[in-house]
């Protein structure tokens, strides 16, 4: 769910349900790394409710696209982590044989 303004789509707040710090902090990190982003942050309105608000302000690009790119980057990072870890475990198992 995106809360933004119709005229200016470079700044918006995205409200995600059923999420918590796990994904919000990771997405906030990748958002910060993107040079198009001027401001990003997340907040949890109430701890009993599983909802996260992610605020993105960019230098002109639509906030939705920038958030999507950040999530894509996070997915690619995870994939790389997985491949590297699997290879390291394989190498160790081979060495132990």
């Amino acid at each position, binding site marked *: 769910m995106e809360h933004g303004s119709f005229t200016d789509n470079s700044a918006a707040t995205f409200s995600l349900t059923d999420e918590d710090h796990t994904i919000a902090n*990771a997405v906030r990190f990748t958002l910060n790394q993107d040079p198009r982003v001027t401001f990003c942050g997340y907040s949890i309105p109430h701890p009993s409710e599983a909802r996260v608000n992610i605020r993105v302000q960019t230098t002109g690009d639509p906030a939705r696209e920038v958030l999507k790119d950040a*999530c894509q980057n996070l997915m690619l*990072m995870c994939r790389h982590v997985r491949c*590297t*870890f699997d290879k390291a475990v394989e190498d*160790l198992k081979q060495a132990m044989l």
Partner: protein
Amino acid sequence: MAEGAGEEKKKFSIWDLPDVPMGQLPPHLELQRSRVSCNKDAPIHTESIQYSGAYASMGIDNSSRLDRFSNNFRVEVVRLNEDDIEFDMIGIDAAIANSFRRILIAELPTMAIEKVLIANNTSIIQDEVLAHRLGLVPIRVDPRLFDYLSENDQPNEKNTIVFKLHVQCKRGSPRITVKSDALKWLPNGSELVKETRNATSDSSSKPEIYTYFGCSQETVPEFVKNPIIPKYPDIIIAKLGPGQEIELEAHAVKGIGKTHAKWSPVATAWYRMLPEVVLLEDIEDDLAEELKSKCPVNVFDIEDLGKGRRRATVARPRACTLCRECIRGDDWEKRVALRRVKDHFIFTIESTGALPPEVLFTEAVKILEDKCERVITELS
């Protein structure tokens, strides 16, 4: 220096001066960016400088492009056993490492006993306490072979595991301890029958049962090789005196740690940053002996310089537990600097037995990828 040279009409940039390293941060800023300094009273520079434009005025691009991450990221496995793993992740940020830790503890599914149907319990352990203890027993089965059981589903062989426990302590025999190996797996489903309240039901009506197994779980090849049993056979569940009996059936379903901690697949999972111990000045002779004896985990070593002089060196910085004994006392803070490397994490994962720890970590990364994908599809 710039003002003096300004008298000449030549313009030159301050960046041309040889002192300023080109394309790199000056050493004190690099220290702030990449190390947490653990001082006597509190650590400083603990936040990670994530903003892409943080060092823009120095001409440094702080944004981590994916290719730079892929080149610098390394994993080194230090120890791998059947139950636990210790590995180093170098080049990753605390936000992502913490996400992995949170997912390992709370969002990886496992099988655990949820419903306990008690036919007879004359022991001194109350029904609910017995059911609670049974729920915490780890079961050695791969949870990826099962589906979730929701409210509307019927319990069948794809989402339930049924165990039976029937122990009796006969009169005259000594007290017995009921351990978790007394739980017998029933691959054909529940044997108990629901009580029908209808007194006029005739004997030809089929009795209602608790689970609807279409086929026996023994037909699945994984379970032929590894029958489903609790991982540890010596967990004490209850104790019986003479004449007491427990007869019950326990149904295990799939769940995640967020709902209840019994579904957490790790005993625990934690990470710490790599400690870095730096000697700011040469420490010799008596001071070196004092330093070596202060450290409870033997981080320091003495090396001989010849002619009876000795010097302290840092031999095992990884063992440092940050007890800060080496900087306690006068003047020691000037000689020893305790730091932590911000992007080097030593991860330890202890599994309870359902899945081997390296598989647990791979599944946790997959779950983070699935969450990202869910966010992307929600946005599109």
